[in-house]
């Protein structure tokens, strides 16, 4: 009887799904806007910026960062973080590099798999330490950041694998395109799409969000937190390994320092892309966009012939600008929501 009445007050908070979907559109729209403005501005200053060559260069650059950012996003969604990606990338790049140098015959696909496996192993190590050692992810991955880099130095020492030592097929893979789409970009897109589908459409994906949103509740809900955590780190590691192979293919020169300091770009890409640092929300698309934005910023500065010394400062300012805009959009939508609540 009066139950329905009991509910009446609550009707005012009923927010039609429409609003929320717009929220999610809005989440990324901030970055997209920034991106468009930046490109437009640069293009007007230097038409060559939109030349096929330059676009190709940007996309190739983005592909590697995006692959890393996707992995990072997945880990961050579970309220963890993976700072070791830079070192994993370096390790995998060198491993695959020396593999190919020593046996020229190895097909590209094998190289890719090797990278995935090696990276995955590192990821599992992180995951196990985080989950079963109950060591905060930041500590673990900061540790493996140092340790894996050290391993890489020990192994690689001063040697540098130069392009002339790598099989041509592999280097072609780094630069050539299929149906106009460079291989690297293609791989980046595949990773992005698959990750999106899994995170949005599959139980495993949703459970990751749940874990990040409330670890305790996740345990109580009977979610296999251990399995998922380790899986998340595995994916992040594997993708970092994959990125290592792409790195090797693209740059052709690999030494022990490859990928040093990448972790911060990757985290920045994910965060700029709207992935919540403390878990539970964010999309890999956002992370991908973040990666694109950072890369574009980089090459814009090079193209715009900005004073070398100003470049880094501008990068920082633009990052702040991007997250600022993102937050602005979000809060505006939230306010709209509350108003919406009031007059039903």
């Amino acid at each position, binding site marked *: 009887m009066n139950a329905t009445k009991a509910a009446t007050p609550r009707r005012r908070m009923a927010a039609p799904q429409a609003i929320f979907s717009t929220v999610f559109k809005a989440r990324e729209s901030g970055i997209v806007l920034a991106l468009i403005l930046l490109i437009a501005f640069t293009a007007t200053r*230097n038409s*060559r*910026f939109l*030349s096929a*060559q*330059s676009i190709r*260069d940007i996309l190739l*650059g983005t592909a590697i960062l995006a692959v890393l950012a996707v992995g990072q996003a997945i880990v961050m969604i579970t309220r963890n973080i993976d700072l070791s990606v830079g070192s994993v990338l370096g390790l995998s790049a060198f491993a695959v590099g020396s593999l190919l140098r020593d046996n020229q015959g190895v097909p590209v696909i094998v190289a890719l798999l090797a990278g995935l496996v090696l990276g995955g192993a590192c990821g599992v190590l992180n995951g196990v330490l985080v989950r079963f050692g109950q060591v905060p992810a930041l500590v673990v991955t900061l540790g493996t950041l140092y340790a894996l*880099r050290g391993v890489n*130095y020990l192994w*690689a*020492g*001063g*040697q*540098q694998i*130069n*392009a*002339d030592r790598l099989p041509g097929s592999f*280097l072609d893979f780094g*630069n050539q395109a299929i149906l106009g789409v460079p291989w690297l970009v293609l791989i980046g897109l595949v990773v992005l799409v698959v990750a999106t589908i899994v995170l949005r459409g599959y139980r495993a994906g949703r459970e990751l969000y749940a874990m990040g949103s409330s670890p305790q509740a996740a345990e109580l809900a009977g979610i296999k937190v251990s399995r998922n955590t380790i899986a998340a780190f595995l994916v992040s590691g594997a993708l970092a390994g994959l990125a290592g192979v792409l790195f090797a293919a693209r*740059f*052709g*020169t690999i*030494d*022990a*320092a*490859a990928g040093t300091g990448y972790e911060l770009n990757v985290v920045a890409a994910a965060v700029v892309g709207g992935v919540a640092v403390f878990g539970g929300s964010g999309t890999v698309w956002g992370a991908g966009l973040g990666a694109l934005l950072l890369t574009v910023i*980089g*090459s814009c*500065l*090079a*193209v*715009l*012939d900005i004073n*070398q*010394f100003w470049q880094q400062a501008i990068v920082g300012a633009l990052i702040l600008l991007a997250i600022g805009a993102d937050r602005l959009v979000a809060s505006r939508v939230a306010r709209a929501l509350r108003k919406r609540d009031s007059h039903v």
Partner: protein
Amino acid sequence: GGTTKDSAGANSGGTQSTATADPNAAAKQGVKMAFLPKQLNNPYSDIEVSGGKTALAELKGEYKLVGPNDASASSQVSYINTLIQQQQDVIGIAANDSNAVCPSLNQARGAGVKVVAFDSDAAKDCRDVFVNQASTQGIGDKLVELASKLAGGSGEVAILSATPNATNQNAWIEVVRADLAKPEHAGLKLVKIAYGNDEDQKSFQEAQGLLQSYPNLKVIISPTTVGIAAAARYLSSSSYKGKVALTGLGTPNQLREYVKNGTVTEFALWKPADVGYLAAYAGVALASGQITGAQGQKFKAGRLGEYTIGANGEIVLGPPTVFDSANIDNFTF
């Protein structure tokens, strides 16, 4: 305090260059010399110090290699301190910052350790001698000469350097600037100096940037081995190959492929190994009291022959070698 138990040279008060040298003193054996390059695992400096190793083997000295993985002055200082504690006889250092390393280097000399700067100098009041791969002027002139040849006397030129703070590169670039200002190079226009921070990837992207921003670019000069290799690789894979020329300082091994495929026609470099080799001989000469670093003093440097210390305790290795498709296969470093 650091006792100097087994550095006899030092006992004769030879720590300051004011002390008198004895050119005929016998070269001491068992001299402990440690090399502290800008950064470990950098292919170039590895070759350099390898020369030092050979030399110390010839001189029956003890060779040691230490160093940070990042090319920063502060981490070099930590290593200098460590070497002081370990009571080395000689430190061979390629300074990341000529001033920042000074206080500790002087502490070392106070403890009777000889200091040989090589490759990149430390402030002259805190080292005994500096082994210079080639006179700054010489390198600058050589770079301009190559560039002007490739540009056919006129056109836009850009420089792809190492880090903005790199002592050497900046010195050379100054010379290049000065030369270009001269009337005979009026046709050449320096449009941009980009910095690849001696990171392969950054250099790669900077090369991209240069080619996009300067349609009429004729020549890229990259006075750093990392930069020239990255630029060569980008050129050879891009549509600019053959249109834009590339020269600078690089090792034959890095560039062999690109010389052969025509991306690069000419580039220069001294023999890095010889830098370390000479530094080692200078170090032992110091430790043995044959020299003190004063101008005009002479000492023998094994297969390189005799060297004379120039102004400010500078020892110049000699003019750089120019490599091209003709001679490149005679060199493997």
